């Protein structure tokens, strides 16, 4: 009798649970055409959390933070961990923390830029010091380490383009690495051009692009670029960052160098 009651109860509960699963499964299936495109569009615009990358490194606090929606705060705390590794000159710890930060929150551009600076400018110094210092190592080894880290930093920044397509600051950072660590002037020039063409680019990107053109002996191209740029700049008294007067002074310098006839010289509307 007792057994029959237990079996009956289990059967009732089982049937009830199965009915619920069946109904919710049907609803889930029916809502699939609504969910799938919404999820795909959302992932395109906002990268989903890379759980597989972070699950091994998470404590309870971080899990709670991520599930609770404090993604920005969790990433900031991980950034502190990366900085703690940076203070100890710990290449493995800093690299792991940087990867975690990118996996938890890839949206802030500052993480990518500063992470690349650690990889490209600081880590080669640590590696060289750990191997005995620049004075004791052959120049080829020092160059190899410097180049390898610069390329690693550029690779780190290129990953960011997935989340921030054509962000001018990423192009500028790559250009600086190419210029300062890899002596690649044409490559740096191209990245400054790409940066300067973005509407959100800082004003200095366009000025540096012209300067790099000039350094390569392409004065005419630099002049044409600055002449096209100057009318788009706000007056210096309105926005000193735009440095419209400096741009005009460089135009005048290039006109002298190119020996342009007075009639064909640039005449600004606001002069």
């Amino acid at each position: 009798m007792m057994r029959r009651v237990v079996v009956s109860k289990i059967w009732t509960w089982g049937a009830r649970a199965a009915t619920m699963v069946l109904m919710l499964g049907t609803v889930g299936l029916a809502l699939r055409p609504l969910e799938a495109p919404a999820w795909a569009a959302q992932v395109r615009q906002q990268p989903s959390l890379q759980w597989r990358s972070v699950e091994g490194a998470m404590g309870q606090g971080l899990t709670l933070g991520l599930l609770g929606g404090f993604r920005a705060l969790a990433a900031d705390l991980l950034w502190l961990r990366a900085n703690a590794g940076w203070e100890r000159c710990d290449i493995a710890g800093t690299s792991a923390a940087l990867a975690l930060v990118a996996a938890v929150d890839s949206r802030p551009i500052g993480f990518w830029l500063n992470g690349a600076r650690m990889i490209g400018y600081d880590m080669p110094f640590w590696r060289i010091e750990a191997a005995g210092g620049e004075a004791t190592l052959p120049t080829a080894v020092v160059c190899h380490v410097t180049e390898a880290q610069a390329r690693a930093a550029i690779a780190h920044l290129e990953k960011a383009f997935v989340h921030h397509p054509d962000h001018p600051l990423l192009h500028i950072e790559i250009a600086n690495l190419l210029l300062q660590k890899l002596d690649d002037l044409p490559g740096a020039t191209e990245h400054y051009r790409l940066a300067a063409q973005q509407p959100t680019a800082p004003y200095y990107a366009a000025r540096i692009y012209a300067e790099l053109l000039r350094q390569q002996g392409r004065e005419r191209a630099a002049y044409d670029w600055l002449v096209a740029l100057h009318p788009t700049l706000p007056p210096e008294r309105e926005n000193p960052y735009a440095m419209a007067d400096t741009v005009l002074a460089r135009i005048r310098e290039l006109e002298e160098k190119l020996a342009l006839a007075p009639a064909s010289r640039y005449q600004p509307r606001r002069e």
Partner: protein
Amino acid sequence: MNEAQSVPLRFSCRRVGVLAGHAFLEAVRQRVFQFTTLLTAVLVVGSLGLRELDFGGAELKFIADFGQGALVLFGSVLTIVTTVQLLGGELENRTVLPVLARPVRRSEFICGKFLGAWAVVLVFCAVVTALLLAALWVRELSVLAGPTEAPVLHGGGAPYVGVLVGGALQAVKFGLLTAMVLLVGSYAQSNLFAQSASFLLLAICHLQYLARDAWQTGHGWLERLGGGLIGLVFPNFQLFGGEYLMAGADGATLALAGRVAAYGAVYTAAFLALAVWSFRQREI
């Protein structure tokens, strides 16, 4: 059997309204509502001072993210605890008996509890979103004053529309969570079990997309079957995140938010129907 008993009781929206009103007043008086609202408000206002902790992003975005995080975390806690207390408290204290002894259908009782609990969460969402908008406005005044380094700033000003639509999506999600908690509470024998199971459900729903991934790319048939089952049965709470709205709310993103809201509404109706059905089977 007299004539009155033989006539089946019809579903009454008026009775649902009365029950919802009582549930709302009861929930508002609970300390959990006052505590979570106060704590979230302090966190949102405090995010103005926490900006020193922002290392990677634009300051206004950090404040918006932090405020949304507080809304999501404490809103979830408020939804689960309030709903469990509203339903489980009545069941444990047996105060449900005099209510159901009156001409009240069980479906009206559950719908009343749902509307009452959701109304409390809606008030919470409105208060927190309004505070967040005010905090963003205060910071925007000082951040965007003066000349800028670029002709067009990345991210521009504060994401007011994004915060507003994000708050609305969270309100829809909390409605769905309320219905899910009612389903758990309709068969749970204790409040502790109902709360634990509800928090577990919340975690599962936030990680549902991983089950979907396992369904599509899993290695073994067991992984694919399990992933598919979880992916179909549980709603995807990550859809309601709305972080993409912070980058700017154009027509496409608002249409996306509308789709997500419709998704949440259908799931809410399904969970509510199951809660009613389950509660009708329950022996009280």
